[in-house]
């Protein structure tokens, strides 16, 4: 490829990444609406607004690569190609959702797109990518598996067990810490004795880097470099420095931080930053960007409608998927009671 071609590619890539970030932002806003309509399954909804630069990592992954996310994983999955309608339906607990309305916002997964599962246990999904890495190593498949998690998970012991095994066995794994500065109400300086997290990863033998979560291109460059190494068996750690724009979940009004701090944090807006960059560099004309924004909004409105009007799962489905079809399934209580109290035939 000529240099010109590569820059074209990079440019179109930037525009594509902007579009994806905007779609994430619009999606999360609709999740808020879904909740306000009283149509969400529960209130444990964790918005990734302010963390859209994860798109930079998603774009550094190949088609066959897999990943797990934490509870704040909507953005990552959208960046990996999720259908927002099926996501929103899952968040609403509907049969048409990715998980038949059984998992909800914190447990979205999709085998087809390599999403091995969002997890509601902080740190719970991290070792799964090491297991995936083991599969890829043994098969020489060249795939990489990526764990996305928050700064809070940096204090979970299993992360270090997982990093050590990836390092010891040189597995194709990437550990991505989305540091949005908070675990619920606890700022990172109140949760970590020392929070140069890359130093921790290095001490376990990983290639480590930090990237500014305001700049999706910086994140993308860092991720591309680490992914190339990981594919060769040099597991890596990437910290994305971001800010959680809103409360931990829908109920949290963040009384534990100042409006000033929030204003500063929200100024570090990856979507706005990318938009400005595109206009400044002339890579994206205002009308094009406006159209992208409008399309994203419209797309997510449809997703919201789809979720609201979709069917709730039928009662008997509750007994499905506990075990694989064709294997002994749990006996419903009603059947048990009937067997005990029903007249002996």
């Amino acid at each position, binding site marked *: 490829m000529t240099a010109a071609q590569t820059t074209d590619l990079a440019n179109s890539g930037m525009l594509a990444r902007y579009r994806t970030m905007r779609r994430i932002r619009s999606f999360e806003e609709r999740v808020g609406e879904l909740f306000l309509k009283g149509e969400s399954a529960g209130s444990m909804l964790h918005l990734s607004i302010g963390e859209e630069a994860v798109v930079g990592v998603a774009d550094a992954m190949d088609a066959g690569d897999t990943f797990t996310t934490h509870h704040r994983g909507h953005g990552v999955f959208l960046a990996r190609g999720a259908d927002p309608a099926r996501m929103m339906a899952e968040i609403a607990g509907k049969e048409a959702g990715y998980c038949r309305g059984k*998992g909800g916002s914190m*447990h979205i997964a999709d085998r087809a797109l390599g999403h091995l599962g969002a997890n509601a246990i902080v740190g719970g999904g991290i070792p799964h990518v090491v297991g995936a890495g083991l599969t890829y190593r043994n098969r020489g498949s060249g795939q990489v598996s990526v764990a996305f998690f928050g700064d809070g998970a940096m204090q979970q012991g299993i992360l270090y067990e997982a990093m050590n095994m990836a390092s010891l066995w040189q597995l194709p794994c990437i550990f991505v810490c989305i540091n949005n500065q908070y675990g619920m109400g606890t700022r990172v300086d109140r949760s970590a004795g020392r929070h140069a997290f890359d130093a921790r990863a290095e001490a376990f033998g990983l290639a480590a880097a930090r990237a500014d979560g305001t700049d999706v291109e910086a994140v993308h460059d860092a991720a591309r470099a680490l992914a190339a190494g990981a594919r060769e068996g040099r597991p890596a750690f990437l910290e994305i420095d971001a800010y959680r724009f809103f409360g931990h979940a829908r109920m949290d009004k963040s009384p534990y931080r100042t409006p000033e701090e929030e204003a500063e944090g929200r100024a570090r807006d990856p979507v706005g930053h990318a938009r400005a960059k595109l206009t400044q560099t002339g890579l994206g004309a205002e009308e094009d960007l406006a159209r992208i924004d409008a399309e994203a909004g419209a797309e997510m409105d449809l997703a919201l409608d789809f979720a609201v009007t979709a069917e709730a799962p039928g009662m008997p489905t509750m007994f499905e998927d506990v075990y694989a079809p064709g294997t002994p399934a749990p006996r419903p209580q009603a059947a048990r009671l009937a067997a005990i*109290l029903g007249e002996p035939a």
Partner: protein
Amino acid sequence: MSAVETTYREAIRQALLDAMEADPDVVLIGEEVGLYGGAYGVTKGLIDLFGAHRVIDAPISEAGIVGVAVGAAMTGLRPVAELMYVDFVGLVMDQLANQAAKSRYMFGGQIGVPMVLRTQGGTGRSAAAQHSQSLEAWMLHIPGLRLVMPATVNDAYHLLRAALTQPDPVVFIEHKGLYTRKGMLDIGWPDGDWGVPVVRRSGRDLTIIAYSRMLHEALAAAEVLAGQGVEAEVIDLRCLNPLDEAPLIESVCRTGRALVVTEAALTGSVASEIAARLGEACFDWLEEPILRLGGEDIPIPVAPALERGSIPDARLIAETARWLVTREAPQWAAQ
């Protein structure tokens, strides 16, 4: 002092506050117990009253938190470790079952671990499979632990105060669906002694045994049953360990029928243990089999209707109890 109306949440907060004022060695340690005031607001404001050395915001390190509480308890403090959801207990079972519960025994009685592990469980918020479980059966199976699950506002206060005087580790499990529940708190008057079940309603036709949130479903069911001429006795276990079985045995031998209710997945549950014991102790007095009602043996689904449908409620309890007494099957069991 006379009774005042308050909430289950407030009663627990009051118990912590009073215990901390009474005993300077009581410290709280857990995620978000300080500045945030607790994920469910139970510890709100306590950090302002007692400072960051006694109300300790911990990193997301459940195993470490319980391990720290064990060491603090061994050396003279009386820690209240908080596990935000009982669903996370899988991360701390080693510290709980192998360390906290066994230290006194392994060390020949030298070193006790007077700590309380406060946590909450149960369904009701569409919090899905990893935030809605009832895992008390695991704790019941560990010699060395005590296990308490209050259902009423008054018990929430008194049993927690009592737990904070115990020489051995106590697992204190609250129910997320009860925090906003109102009831009378009488600081001078517990519902009953530590370790003794309480008869919450008397009746002659059958005995319904429940605990935690299911107690209220059972009482609601008893009300319905009364309207149908069935008098149910309702007993609240309160403390699962220690447990004085005598009141249960006395009641079941008198009524001849027992329904044991739990919100947990039925297989391997507390209800199974109680049923097995009653089957041994009340055999000659039974008119009908000791019957268990519990959650379906499935993970908790997020869809609200499925979640509700997967655990017992007043209606199911009432219909099953009536079935047990009258032998007339309810509609849903007709076919």
